[in-house]
């Protein structure tokens, strides 16, 4: 009984990984938009100091 359930969750993990790869550009768009000094030269991986100045 536990086996199929465990396999189902494994599918979910795989699905989340696929999602992460396919939605990376979307993440990158949001990530860049939240960084104040983001240029095409320096964009950090995470918006550690989020700023909404890009939207103003």
């Amino acid at each position: 009984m536990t086996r199929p359930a465990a396999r189902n969750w494994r599918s979910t993990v795989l699905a989340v990984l696929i999602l992460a790869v396919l939605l990376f550009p979307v993440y990158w768009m949001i990530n860049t938009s939240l960084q104040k000094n983001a240029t095409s030269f320096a964009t950090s991986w995470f918006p550690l100091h989020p700023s909404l100045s890009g939207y103003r």
Partner: protein
Amino acid sequence: MTQTASLADRTDAAAGPGQGRDVRSPARRARRRERAAQWLFLTPALVYMAAFFGYPIVKNVVMSFQDYSVSSLYTGTAPFAGLLNYRAILSSGLFGQLAWNTAVFTVLSLAGQFTLGLGLALFFARRFPLNGVIRALLLLPWLLPLVASATVWRWMLGQDNGVVNALLGLAHLAPATGVPWLSSTSVALFAVILVNIWIGIPFNMVILYSGLREIPEEIHEAAALDGARAIARFRYITWPMLRPVVTVVLVLGFIYTIKVIDIILVVTGGGPANASQTLAVQSYQLSFKEFLFGQGAAMGNVLILISLVFALVYLRFNRAALRTGGEL
């Protein structure tokens, strides 16, 4: 015209039903009124089609036979040029490369989108927690404005500071200088194909997934009971029963892909040195960069002809699919 007829009918009716000359007319009048109603329902759609599809296409065909230039915009007249525009685009020396680029772009995009879309559809046809949520999120690339996602890709594909090269570098998959995604004539076309595949995956996945759901579960169960393995079940049950949907996806995908212009314009602009230039992009650039509207229109017509052939194929297959669907 039909309106006045129906109006006449109504005044007839108002004049009274008991008149001698109208013995068999109630039925006929009802039929005529129905006719008028049908036309009234059709008229908005017909006017819309004529204004927004018919007129531009006719105008485009006419323009392609004219020497339509910037001065034509002021004077409103353009001299007749016969086949000169077509001769110009076909003999420009660039046409062969454009046709080749368009073919490579279309075929590889379709192959990538379809394979990945089918794989994802098969994967999500299984039951597991959060299936629906994740499937819905996967549609996101489809919902973003093309110009926005193409712009993001242009940043990401930058050679020195792009995140794609950074990731490849982390995995030690790229040379130290990075892959010149957008600046090399031999890579640029594949870069735009990559972006186009990414954008096309959700469409392929959704349609193929719904096609998979149409296949009755019992058939799979029966085959499994008979000892058919997953590969055999796919080969002999899933694929044949999915065929009509596959055809629809591929033909629609073809028509959407061959006319792609926004992605290429934003990501590479057709460059470097026309390396990622396709017929659609060139049509735009002839018209709005070089202001050779006649040649741009001619190029557009070549594209329309190619698409038309595949649209006819689509309609034929669609009818065949409907027929077999009726048999099931």
